[in-house]
């Protein structure tokens, strides 16, 4: 048995080597870099340099606040929307189900740059269709890119558009795994469709909902594309700068790798912490 194991590991060695060099080592290395002052040549070990800056940096707290704001508003709204979409997709009355399923999933496949460009056009002040629509129902135009609140809303709308369908498909798969006869039993028990949704579908979907929420939280903590491309590098004036963007700015614009690493580790730690709290809150009762 031991011999067989050794043979297996010999076959795995090429993969494990590559994994160790290009995956494990960068993770360890970046953690070590976060303890170094990287604006001097040569880099020197200074544990308080980056981590100390982090706790007092207004730009970091601004990015953290923006990220958490998006997280708190966008993730629940998106999952609720995904749930509605999944229920509609699951309806036996729906024709051409495959087409809708594809349509809901399509935004994930669309290139990020293309989708960001289209969003910029749609929300443009003077010739965007969104402002045209607002005008047509008597509402004033909104300058989506120059004011912080509309800009944040735009980021949330864009992220929701992109990922709601994806989550809906996952939720749909969960819904379809609930046996039909449980609903039939509830129907015979005189339980209305609405109550069936709240008392049967939702509780039984809980693990799937938690899964979607965890994926979304991790995604939002790393949010980069939308504020970079749609609101032009976290504009206006850092109003939509997220932690991902701050990391990029520090690492690749200012070449301050030590600080960027500290930000990266903070993002990862926050994602883990929030996820753990969520898992704890939604744990199965014994």
């Amino acid at each position, binding site marked *: 048995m031991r011999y067989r194991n050794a043979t297996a590991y010999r076959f795995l060695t090429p993969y494990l080597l590559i994994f160790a060099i290009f995956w494990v080592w960068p993770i360890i290395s970046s953690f070590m870099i976060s303890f170094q002052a990287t604006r001097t040549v040569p880099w020197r070990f200074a544990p308080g340099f980056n981590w100390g800056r982090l706790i007092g940096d207004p730009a970091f707290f601004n990015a953290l606040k923006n990220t958490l704001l998006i997280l708190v508003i966008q993730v629940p709204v998106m999952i609720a929307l995904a749930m509605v979409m999944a229920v509609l997709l699951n309806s036996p009355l729906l024709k051409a189900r495959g087409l809708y399923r594809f349509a809901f999933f399509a935004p994930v496949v669309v290139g990020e740059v293309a989708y960001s460009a289209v969003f910029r056009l749609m929300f443009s002040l003077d010739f965007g269709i969104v402002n045209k629509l607002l005008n047509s129902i008597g509402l004033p135009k909104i300058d989506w890119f120059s004011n912080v609140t509309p800009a944040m809303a735009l980021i949330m709308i864009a992220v929701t558009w992109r990922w709601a369908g994806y989550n809906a498909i996952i939720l749909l798969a969960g819904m379809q795994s609930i*046996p039909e*006869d*449980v609903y*039939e*039993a*509830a*129907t*015979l*028990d*005189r*339980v*209305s469709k609405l*109550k069936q949704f709240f*008392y*049967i579908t939702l*509780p*039984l979907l*809980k693990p799937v909902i938690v899964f979607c929420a965890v994926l979304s939280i991790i995604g939002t903590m790393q949010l980069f594309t939308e504020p970079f491309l749609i609101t032009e590098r976290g504009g206006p004036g850092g109003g939509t700068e997220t932690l991902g963007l701050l990391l990029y700015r520090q690492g690749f614009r200012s070449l301050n790798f030590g600080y960027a690493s500290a930000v990266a580790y903070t993002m990862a730690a926050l994602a883990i912490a929030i996820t753990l709290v969520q898992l704890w809150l939604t744990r199965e009762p014994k």
Partner: protein
Amino acid sequence: MATVTLKNVVKRFGSFEVVHGANIDIRDGEFIVFVGPSGCGKSTLLRMIAGLEDISGGEIAIGGKVVNDVEPADRGIAMVFQSYALYPHMSVEQNLSFGLRMTGNPKADTERRVKRAAEILRISELMDRRPKKLSGGQRQRVAIGRAIVREPQVFLFDEPLSNLDAELRVQMRVEISRLHKELGTTMIYVTHDQTEAMTLADRIVVLRGGHVEQIGKPLDLYDNPDNQFVAGFVGSPKMNFIKARVVGHEARGVVVELAGEEKTRIVQPLADAAPETGSKVIVGVRPEHFGLAGEGDADLPVAIDVVEHLGGTSFLYARTANGEDVVIQRDATRVPDTPGITVSIRKSYLFDEKGLRLR
């Protein structure tokens, strides 16, 4: 308690008809079993009574009231599903009380009903457990309990025992029988297992291909089947069918000769018009209706393939000279240890070529 009446009930899925005009009268308090092979329409029929399937034609009445357009919840029925269909995220107690709680039934009454159901089914000590912590038999009890708390006029069982092992199936069969005696409610039970049908039913409805083949008391079906299908389906091991030919007519009845057995002739008394000489017929013999040579109407030499000794009885799997398989049931002490024996046919049934009984 209520009667259930099915009048010319038809079910179509698209253009495909699966139930072709079923007529069944179920009496108040009766235990009736729908039995038949897979795809015979028995579950569809049950689901139509429950209201889970639309009725394509005909009429279903419960307690004298036509329910074709009545919602499932308002039909006064409760159903036990094959897969139990318990709510997996609820405890046993919550499973039992869920329907009543959701419809605003008074709390004290809900508690009373749940307690009574738990006592009847002896699951009081399981009330806090989730379904996944229960054995198959316990789950089935909870599923039955959930039906009991609704205090329905009619219980519907959709193959409730098919997911249980053999021993538990026998035990639950007895329990369901006891439950019927205790509650006295009309029960409609679907199964493909003829033993369950024979042991539980007041009356059995035998279905095949969406047609009702025969309705009757278990032993009436056994002793007096209307056709070859019912004769073969009811009874285990099933009735033996041997090809034969009419060779003449006597005052006592029609004379048939078993295929390939010139010496084996049976005289079958018939009230109906006898088939013409030379027409092909089928002789049906139940395994227990074979006797020792010379004991019965005709003797039949057979070659023995396999003998199964079950203790009290033995089954002989044998072949006639014409190569037809027959199963012979014998007292265990009287099984000869020879490759071939001659048995007598003590009682037989006659069917025409289409399988209809000739009597």
